């Protein structure tokens, strides 16, 4: 089976406070630490496990981003992905979810993908709109919020997280499957994996390789525009005390004072 996982490099959510550049109105990515989206690590891990369980399958990572995204892709190769494809082009800067889906779908169409994995949403943009967009461009179903995946012949059967429990959902392949965070254990790259990653196939594509016009993507193609950037009103801090054995009773006092008990 030809399996794919769409991934993204983002500012490290554990160390970077995301900022918008007031001039470009884009996420500031220069001068900050960039990492493979931690959510994607889980998604990649789920895909690797499924590839190994199915046998006779190949897993390819696909990403759109600046040349620096190579590092995030190398990490996916070190984790166990077989090969990587990065679409990078200056015209892609400022792309919205629709443009991102357009570009990724163009790669996946060329590749004749059977099964495509995405995280439910990225940890920096949070829109969660790219996976469904890819599915629509390809004219295939999307199975979202998967916490368990089974492939039976040409069918995917997933357990899908819902507000109140889960659903068992079935669809024919090819399909896009999104992974609910926390549902699969992450694989960590081994030394052997990191060394081996350097020898794995890595290709880089430009927009012209995909037959996409620059006017359809990037800032030019974006359907949304930020008009103003403002500051949120800060919530005033209250009282903070050091626990000297009295922490619990001080909290209980606070609760009683405001009739919260």
């Amino acid at each position, binding site marked *: 089976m030809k399996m794919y996982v769409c991934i993204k490099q983002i500012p490290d959510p554990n160390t970077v*406070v*995301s900022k*918008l550049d007031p001039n470009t109105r884009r996420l500031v990515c220069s001068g900050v630490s960039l990492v493979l989206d931690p*959510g994607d690590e889980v998604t990649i891990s789920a895909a690797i496990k499924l590839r190994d369980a199915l046998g006779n399958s190949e897993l390819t990572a696909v990403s759109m981003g600046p040349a620096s995204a190579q590092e995030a892709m190398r990490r996916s190769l070190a984790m166990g992905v077989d090969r990587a494809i990065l679409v990078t082009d200056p015209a892609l800067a400022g792309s*919205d979810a*629709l443009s991102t*889906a*357009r570009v990724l779908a163009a790669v996946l169409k060329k590749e004749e993908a059977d099964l495509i994995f995405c995280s439910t949403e990225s*940890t920096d943009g*949070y829109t969660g*709109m*790219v996976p*469904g*967009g890819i599915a*629509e461009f390809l004219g295939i*179903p*999307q199975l*979202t919020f998967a*916490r368990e995946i089974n492939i039976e012949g040409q069918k995917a059967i997933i357990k899908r*997280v*819902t*507000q*109140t*429990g*889960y*659903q068992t*959902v*079935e*669809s024919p392949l090819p399909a896009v499957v999104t992974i*609910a*965070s926390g*549902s*699969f254990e*992450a694989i960590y790259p081994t030394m052997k994996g990191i060394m081996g990653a350097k020898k794995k196939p890595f290709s880089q594509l430009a927009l012209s390789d995909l037959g996409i016009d620059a006017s359809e993507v990037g800032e030019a193609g974006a*359907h*949304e*525009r*930020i*008009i103003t*950037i*403002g*500051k*949120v009103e*800060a919530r005033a801090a*209250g*009282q*903070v*005390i*050091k*626990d000297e054995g009295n*922490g*619990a*009773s*001080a*909290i*209980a006092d*606070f*609760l009683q004072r*405001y009739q919260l*008990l």
Partner: protein
Amino acid sequence: MPNTIWVLVELENGKPARSSLEVLSKAAQLGRAEAIVLGSGAAEVAPTLGEYGAEKVYIHDDPTYDDYLTLPAVDTISELLKQHQPTLLLLATTYDLRDIAARLDVRHNMGLITDATDLQFDGDTVQVTVPWGGENVVTATFPKSGTGIVLTRPKAFSVERQEGKTADVETLNVAINAESQKIKILERIEVQSEGPALEDASVIVSGGRGLGKPENFHLVEDLAAALGGAAGATRAIVDAGWVPYSYQVGQTGKTVKPTLYFACGISGAIQHLAGMKGSKFIVAINRDEHAPIFSIADFGVIGDTLTILPQLTEEVKRRKAQ
């Protein structure tokens, strides 16, 4: 001409979902609100939506929408978009509506803004308020012509009801394509959790990395139980597999606005704060005095979460018994 705003109203056990009614109420304040209801029970629900501000309701009362996800609804709304040009499609952020929005955006080359907490019109230009990254709030719009899609943050708007108001109902004459019956629901499982649901709880006790290991999460659940509340979690410990996704409070996960929110061993990453800072009272326990959570807490204790939590649970039980 007033701006026309379409709202797709979801049904839960044959009743309109609260999240849909919140959005419909907001749409009615913005202009001419029109609702779309698809699935079993649509015909019964439709006339009542006038009370929540709908002037017109399009319905297709057909169980196919209940049994097959996403594609039939996308097809039907897509057909409707060919006949009418509303200014906006305004949707609650739910699991199913997100999937529908993503496909409609692509199919009709529309433009889509997510996580809106407010919106208003300046003439026929919509201005959408979106909190961004914890420190900023941006105003966004659709620079191109045509219908745009806005997904709204849960609980951003309140339900407004005017008893006795009615809506015109139009039954859609559409056939559901067999090709779109692909994502089939085989079974639905409701997982009963003890105590109130996270979204409805007036008290929430959440835990983060500071709990040290998954085995300590019960300390959070114990305090939640003692207070008659629900237990929640940060994305970090959900990602680490300590607790299921359904516990996650934050920008991804659930937005909550309880009366009382406990942040236990939570440093206060922006992604988490975005989901809970609307809480009326916030109490934080953290070892690190510089943790950002203290800057928004009404009451904070610098100390060991694992020591304080069990003491507090006992103290709460003791005082409640008095």
